[in-house]
């Protein structure tokens, strides 16, 4: 029996690490901020940059897709759904919901094995 590479054993998507990363990135950028039309695009970009940098630092053989939705709190309803065509043994996704007094932020990371 051949020995398995250690990298192969770690190849499954580890959801917990990822959700921590997302939470921290969002917190770092949006904490205590008020919703402001001008700044929103800047925030989303920096949130996503943070996320991606830290995901790459995990050094796993994965492709990532990160989406971020920021909505102003207005009493409006919002629904999000995702459907995926992938290999369920190696791929996974994680969604983190974050809110403060003026806005909601929904951040999703999809990780697909190479």
């Amino acid at each position, binding site marked *: 029996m051949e020995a398995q590479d250690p990298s192969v054993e770690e190849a499954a998507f580890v959801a917990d690490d990822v959700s921590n990363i997302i939470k921290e990135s969002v917190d770092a950028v949006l904490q205590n901020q008020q919703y402001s039309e001008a700044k929103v695009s800047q925030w989303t970009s920096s949130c996503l940059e943070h996320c991606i940098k830290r995901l790459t630092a995990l050094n796993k053989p994965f*492709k990532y897709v990160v989406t971020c939705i920021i909505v102003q709190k207005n009493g409006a*309803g919002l629904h*999000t759904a995702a459907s995926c065509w992938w290999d369920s043994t190696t791929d996974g996704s994680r969604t983190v919901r974050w809110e403060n007094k003026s806005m909601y932020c929904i951040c999703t990371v999809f990780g697909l094995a190479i």
Partner: protein
Amino acid sequence: MAEQQFEDMEAFLRVAKYTLVKFTDMNSEMKEEAMDICITAVEKYPNDAEKCTQMIKDQMDKKFGAPWHVVVGKGFSYEITYEVSSWQAAAMDDSMPFQSGGIKEVVYENTYITDPEGYGPNTKFERHKVQAVLKQVLKERIEKQKYDPVKGAQISKQLSDDLREKVKALGYDRYKLVIQVTVGQKQGQAMRIISRCLWDTQSDNFASEYYENESMYCVCQVYGLYYE
């Protein structure tokens, strides 16, 4: 003379009572274990083929992972496709000839093709085609709808499933798909959806469409990631 032969045969059998392995490509560990399991089973149930096969299959599944196919009998012919290194045909003299083969997961051979174009024309994720499909589906579904909190959840789920089927039908075989649908109520609020991806820019792509009517809006994104 015949009697002598017969005696010799019996004596021979008694002495050399072990399995005759006709063909196998298992490695020696697996082979030894498989042989042991088979011998025990046949000795335990010499006249009951069903129990015998059940026992062998259970043990092989436990030890080496499902699924295994086991055939026990006194006369049969076969045609089997199997995964390499898990096939064994053996005969136990005088009682029951048997064979067991394992058909495990399919092993893919190397195609030596590294990008989507290698599989033929029209295999690269084409953004405009996907966008056209998205537009059409969104229009059909959302045109006459009014925002309703209960229905909204259903709509978004159904939409994402439908879109997945339609994009699959476009025939991008080597692509993994991720489809995200967001449905919201129009109430004068502002919102922003942004995405960032870490992928291979030459082979992966995405398409996104936006549709709105008087009471609601819908945004959907389709990401196609090439998988070797």
